């Protein structure tokens, strides 16, 4: 299973969501499908995509937030799985593309290669209520549909090949992305101030 195929399969759902993606190949594959103003590409600060998603989801409970994450990034910030579980925003879906590799920084194997470290087990152990581990596109689609249908915090660990795009580059400067993302939310997402407390 390729990450690009997974992202492509659920891309139509993204239109109504806020999407935060990690750096490198994952960001590029999303961008190549067509940038939208509700996409935020975290091109550094590895590990914090899930934390940004958590901050968004807690503060915009009526808006679904999707985090496109990776094994290397999640391993850098395992603590956020526990924080997510503790505050359990119903509108947050984290998709961890596990290619067992630090692909964007030279392809070194990560701790999840050869099944040594099991991120789905870690997510469950952290207290995430809905965790799916998938390795075929069919199972991925089914897990994604279930996550979109339920109103509860969901994590999908998708085992994918360690392959990425043959090019990198976006016509979007990093602060420009942040400024436009903030503006998109300000102009399009109705703020519900009360009941923001989890």
């Amino acid at each position: 299973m390729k990450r690009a195929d997974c992202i492509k399969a659920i891309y139509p759902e993204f239109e109504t969501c806020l999407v935060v993606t990690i750096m490198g190949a994952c960001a590029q594959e999303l961008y190549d499908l067509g940038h939208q103003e509700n996409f935020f590409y975290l091109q550094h600060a590895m590990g914090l995509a899930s934390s940004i998603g958590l901050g968004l989801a807690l503060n915009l409970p009526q808006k679904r937030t999707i985090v496109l994450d990776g094994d290397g990034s999640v391993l850098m910030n395992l603590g956020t799985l526990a924080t997510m579980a503790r505050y359990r925003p119903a509108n947050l879906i984290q998709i961890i593309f596990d290619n067992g590799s630090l692909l964007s920084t030279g392809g070194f194997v990560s701790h999840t290669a050869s099944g040594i470290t099991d991120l789905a087990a870690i997510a469950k152990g952290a207290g995430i209520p809905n965790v799916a581990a998938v390795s075929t596109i069919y199972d991925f689609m089914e897990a994604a549909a279930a996550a979109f249908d339920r109103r509860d915090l969901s994590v999908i660990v998708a085992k994918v090949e360690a392959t990425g795009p043959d090019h990198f580059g976006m016509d979007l400067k990093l602060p420009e992305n942040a400024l436009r993302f903030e503006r998109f939310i300000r102009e399009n997402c109705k703020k519900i101030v009360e009941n923001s407390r989890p």
Partner: protein
Amino acid sequence: MTVSRENSKALYQGIKAAGVRFITALPETWLIYLLQMAEDDPEMCLIEVAKEEEAVGIAAGAYFAGTPNVMLLQNHGFLGAINGIVSLAMLYRVPLCMLIAHRGHMGEPYPWHTQGGIVTEPVLRGLGIPFDYARDPAKIAKQIREAYTFSRSSLSPVALLLTRDLMEGEA
């Protein structure tokens, strides 16, 4: 010495008066009353994190979502969060308002706090993060309001160092 409940109250009132409704924090002794007040306040959303760098991401998400927010942390947590501060907040021009308990400085009896306390100011200067010391409970509300305002106008991290003078006292 114990943590000053009165001054913690002034600090919390300052946070509320600045319009803040969302706090990310990692528990620390000097912040104990503040965190209790935030927890007991139905108008406040308090998110306790596992590690301070996480709070940078959560604060960025809250900012994108339009919720006025501050981070409450110890200076050692600030030191541990630097990559997030540099490679998310500064890189993307995301404002952060950090209220930092400045442990390990003059009067510090505990050896384990000292190195972090000694390097806090030079690290803030090295990173180009504007900061101020908060010592006087009568001025704290104004200082929080100004730090928050400046973080939003400069789209930058801003730090307010909560000193021993402010945080310790008679219970």
